[in-house]
């Protein structure tokens, strides 16, 4: 089932084309990463999906239903974790979650139970009676998430939920995203941090200048920018060795040696590691380490957009 389907979405702010005929399809069960530099159009796109702002043209389908004035109930199945922590400092953690969950139609016992479960999920049960102004940044981020998930939405949109927090809280949140996905929620995750996208996302869309310029799995994105891979072998060092024989192996394009490192460039689809290892054994070269180096997602992004992700 398609959870989000965008068709030819256009949004313009005065002379700026924020979203330029974007088509997007996110299937149930995915963790879809939305990557792009500031001003690329990510937030506008999310606002359009959430019906927070109007679009100039195009259609939004949520759960295979057209999102219009008659289908506002569909918003009950969405949970949004905003980039800025949007909680009430003068309400307790429990009251915050309780209030936001109640706006999604939960009542009485169900509301109470779901509030408790959401707080437990983010590890704030012991702090439920405390006000967020006493919380650390990481705890506030976790409460921010709890407010978005208590009603168990089918689609969770997370906009850079780990900004400015300690590694412990960050790990907690990343694992929580995985867990939410395992429990059946589809996740749209925007981030500036490439390692987060690599760790979490089953598919990634790269947005730039209001367009999705590339989309696919991590491997698919890497293959867009290069058709090569690199193997680095660390040996026990023997500057005398010149393993020219490696170049005869199928798929090997180039071999270079520097100190204890032997760098072998191969075609991306080649499957020749075993042959390389055997050849080095024949030459009596002891192997200390083997690293398979593809093109990083960061490099792929740079190559596609001409900008670094944090620009």
């Amino acid at each position: 089932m398609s959870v989000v389907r965008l068709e030819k979405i256009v949004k313009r702010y005065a002379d700026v084309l924020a979203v330029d005929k974007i088509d997007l399809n996110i299937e149930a069960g995915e963790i879809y990463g939305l990557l792009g530099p500031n001003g690329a159009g990510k937030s506008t796109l999310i606002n359009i999906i959430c019906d927070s702002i109007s679009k100039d043209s195009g259609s939004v389908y949520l759960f295979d239903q057209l999102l219009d004035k008659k289908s506002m109930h569909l918003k009950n199945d969405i949970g949004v974790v905003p980039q800025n922590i949007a909680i009430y400092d003068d309400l307790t953690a429990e009251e915050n979650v309780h209030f936001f969950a109640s706006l999604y139609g939960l009542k009485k016992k169900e509301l109470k139970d779901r509030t408790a479960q959401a707080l437990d999920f983010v590890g704030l049960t012991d702090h439920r009676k405390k006000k967020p102004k006493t919380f650390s940044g990481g705890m506030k981020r976790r409460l921010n998430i709890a407010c978005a998930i208590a009603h168990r939405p089918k689609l969770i949109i997370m906009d850079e939920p780990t900004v400015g927090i300690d590694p412990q809280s960050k790990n907690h949140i990343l694992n929580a995203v995985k867990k939410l996905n395992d429990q059946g929620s589809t996740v749209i995750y925007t981030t500036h941090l490439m390692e987060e996208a690599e760790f979490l996302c089953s598919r990634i869309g790269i947005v730039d200048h209001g367009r999705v310029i590339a989309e696919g799995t991590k491997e698919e994105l890497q293959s867009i920018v290069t058709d090569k891979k690199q193997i680095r072998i660390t040996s026990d060092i023997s500057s005398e060795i010149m393993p020219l024989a490696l170049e005869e192996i199928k798929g090997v394009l180039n071999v270079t040696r520097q100190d204890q490192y032997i760098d072998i460039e191969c075609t991306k689809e080649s499957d020749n590691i075993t042959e390389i290892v055997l050849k080095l054994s024949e030459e009596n070269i002891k192997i200390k380490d083997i690293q398979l180096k593809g093109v990083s997602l960061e490099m792929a992004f740079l190559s596609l957009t001409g900008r670094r992700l944090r620009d």
Partner: protein
Amino acid sequence: MTLFKIIKKECLQNLRDYKLMLILTLMPLATILGMGLAISGAFTMDEIDLSSIKIDYILEEESPYSMGMDVLFNEMKASEIKDIDTGVVRLESGDVDAVIQVVGKSVEIYYNEEFSVKGSIVEAMLASYTDQFNITSITGEYNQDNDNLVKVRYMAEPDDASAMDYYGVAMTVLFGFYTITMVLSSVMKEKKSGTFSRILLTSSSRIEILYGKTIGGVLIAVTQLSIIMLVTYFAFEVNWGNLLFSWLLMITMAMLVVSIGIALGFLFESEDKAMGLTHGLIVMFGLFGGAYMPLQELGFFGQMGKFFSPIWWNMNGLLSMIYSGDNSMLLQSLVINLLGSIIILSLVSLKLNKKEFVYG
């Protein structure tokens, strides 16, 4: 229902901001007490006996209206004079508190600066008489005794007004308008923290959100005003006239005040600018409402400006009801408050429906 959830949340948040609640409740009480005691001299040592107000009057044309006035002035033991210059000289020398000139249906009142409160009371009585006359003059064709009706209505229940009475009402209304800052601050805080945008992401309608916030604010404002009214009524013995009618006017005033606060909150992006404008507005409303100085001091601008001051409308409604027993002005003020709130809230809901409030 979303509406009740938002009302509950608003009340909870406001009640927890106990410092602001205390300031908005205790400040008016302290001011009323201070002003009531400090300025009691202006009220002839604590209280004004209406029959002690000295008035000169001139009736320049005879008409049913001026005849009625004549009866009213006789009851007030006012002295008729021949020309306005004589009256002004007597006013300047403090021999009289007010000079009234009636030409046809036009009435001009000259106050004595030092006794402006007495002048205000005379003005309220005359305004009340004029309103009443517009009604009784129609029935007068059938009932020649209508002037007696007027006379009995106005003079049968003379009342004493102390400084505490005047400032009890004036400061409650004035400080009631400072609730705008509380509401404005609440809206700004919601916008700034992103919680308002977050609420908009739910399936709740924007109207529900707007009215939830409004009703929550009104409940808090009415609670504060009720406390002030009850304390001034029982502890300071402030004359509120018909307490129920005064309270009803306060409810509609709270609605107007909260609506203004919400509108300013959504209109402005910067809290500093909005607060600056709000304080300026309240000062202007107070100035043209007669809360700081007599309106005649402001001349033509004062007379025109008062119509744009909701403080004046509310004060006028209350004073007319309390000192003249005239509920029509109170009703008028009540309707103006309600209409004002409805118009302002409608404009805010139009803005909200434009969907420019993005999350995050």
